[in-house]
């Protein structure tokens, strides 16, 4: 049996609509946040969970971290059901929300950590050892005496990570951890997560909109849309399925250019530069090149692979999300 087993997870919310004119009561609408999602994750895996806003990512995280009770389906994490016996279950997991702080706002972060020690009933020895380990890995030493509210977003995220890992959880959920971080902080955060995963064997599941996170961290990615799982596998496999379009930009010497490209390719022009978008599976690149050369003397040419964000956008579009 895998470490995390999720089978047919369902969750619906009732939302009250705005009251329509001439009606006494507001109509209720049910929104299916999850329509039977199933997956399993092995211990020590680093899994990315992506999908457009409102796809049900946060709902899944909230159910698996014991905050919400699902309306149907089964889930088992390390032999425990998240929403049964919450107090016992949450001892074994850690959660970081990118948009929500879990530490105390006005006091030095070391005070927050020491209160967490009491909350999780950690022994002094374990706590000191783990704190040392984490503050070295996250470079928190100089920040320990600073109140949380005076930290930058990147520093705060490092403090939050430390806070949620003090009790050595087996499983760590990260809900959009890199949101709003600068490039340096993002890279530092990713390096830390890799380290924690390798060093302590912590299973990590993260939701994100930043494809770089997935590319840098996750061996496996799951795509969620409209409350259903649409893809589960390696990132390169996902990209291959949707990585179909190439763009060529060409500049010519001279101005009198009549470019005739093969059927199926599209051309747009900006000043004296042409952009040709085509699908290599339908139009062989060699054929396109011939057409380009026939049109005039090429002075400059670049061939670009599709941007990863565009790919995901194309995928969401194709899957009608």
């Amino acid at each position, binding site marked *: 049996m895998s470490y995390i087993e999720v089978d047919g997870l369902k969750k619906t919310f009732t939302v009250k609509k705005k009251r329509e004119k001439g009606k006494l009561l507001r109509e209720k609408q049910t929104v299916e946040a999850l329509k039977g999602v199933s997956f399993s994750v092995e211990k020590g895996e680093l899994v990315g969970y992506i999908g457009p806003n409102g796809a049900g990512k*946060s709902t899944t995280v*909230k159910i698996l971290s*014991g905050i919400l*009770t699902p309306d149907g389906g089964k889930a088992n994490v390390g032999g425990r059901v998240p929403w049964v016996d919450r107090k016992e279950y*949450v001892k074994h997991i850690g959660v970081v929300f990118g948009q*929500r702080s879990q530490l*105390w706002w006005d*006091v030095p972060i070391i005070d927050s950590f020491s*209160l967490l020690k009491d*909350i999780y009933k950690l022994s002094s020895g374990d706590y000191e050892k783990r704190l040392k380990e984490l503050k070295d890995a996250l470079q928190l030493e100089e920040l320990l005496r600073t109140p949380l509210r005076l930290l930058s977003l990147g520093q705060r995220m490092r403090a939050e990570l430390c806070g949620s890992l003090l009790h050595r959880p087996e499983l760590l959920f990260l809900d959009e951890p890199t949101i709003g971080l600068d490039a340096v902080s993002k890279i530092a955060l990713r390096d830390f997560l890799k380290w924690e995963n390798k060093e302590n064997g912590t299973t990590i599941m993260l939701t994100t909109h930043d494809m770089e996170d997935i590319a840098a961290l996750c061996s496996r990615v799951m795509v969620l849309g409209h409350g259903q799982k649409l893809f589960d596998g390696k990132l390169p496999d996902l990209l291959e399925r949707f990585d179909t379009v190439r763009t060529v930009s060409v500049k010519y010497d001279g101005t009198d250019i009549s470019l005739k490209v093969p059927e199926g390719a599209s051309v747009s022009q900006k000043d004296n530069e042409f952009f040709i978008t085509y699908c290599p599976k339908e139009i062989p690149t060699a054929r396109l090149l011939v057409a380009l050369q026939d049109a005039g003397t090429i002075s400059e040419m670049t061939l670009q692979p599709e941007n990863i964000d565009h790919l995901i956008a194309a995928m969401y579009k194709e899957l009608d999300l």
Partner: protein
Amino acid sequence: MDTVRLYIRSMGMLLRSHLQYPASFVMQTLAQLVMEAGEMMVVILVVDRFEKLKGWTGGNLFFFFGLMSVSFYITEFFGRGITGDFPSMVRTGKLDTILLRPRGVLTQVLCSGMDPRRITCIAVGTVALIMGSRMSGVEWSALKVLALIESIGMSCLLILGLFMIESIFCIHSVKSVELVNAITYGGRSACQYPIDIYPTPLKVMFTVLAPFALTLHVPAAWILGKPLYGWPIWTVFVTPLSGAAVFFIMTALFHRGMRYYRSTGS
């Protein structure tokens, strides 16, 4: 014991948080003093105008006022998590954070709020209590002190229980329900006077729904030497327990309500 330790440590932390903004803290504490002193002025004016109110002397009225103030503001001082902050905890998702920790929800809610500015209100209440007892010529005995302490303690639990009604609604509707204030803040305003001055419907309400009559009125009347209808002395110690009963019923309902918690988006 662990829970008590956690609560005390949390309170220390919250106090330090409040003192991070010393000027604002001092100003607000003084504002509370002015507010509560204003409340007491009303009683002083009433006492000045009417020498007696349905058989209760001026001193008696001060005593009732003091008892209510002390109970109410001790509750707000230590129970701010329930009496004030809970709706915003639900709205901002702080409750999610609480649910991620291996401790009781109610414990953590109580650990995450305190209102030390109320200290001045408690001081005003204490002054009124002492004034009332002097003016009424109360002869204190160990039993009377015990009755007073029990009355304050049980009233605190009752007030906490009443505020929890709002919390329970809040879990379902995410928004705070101001209507409930009618029996919390309204209850405080009404029950700082002896309850037998009110018409029957109100008496029933404050005996059955929000039993301030049982937690405050009965012991206070006995301490002031006016036992109710010649009831035996043990009633003075038994009726206030209704405060604890309300608290435990609300605690049970609160935990039931948490099962339907639906969180907010993020």
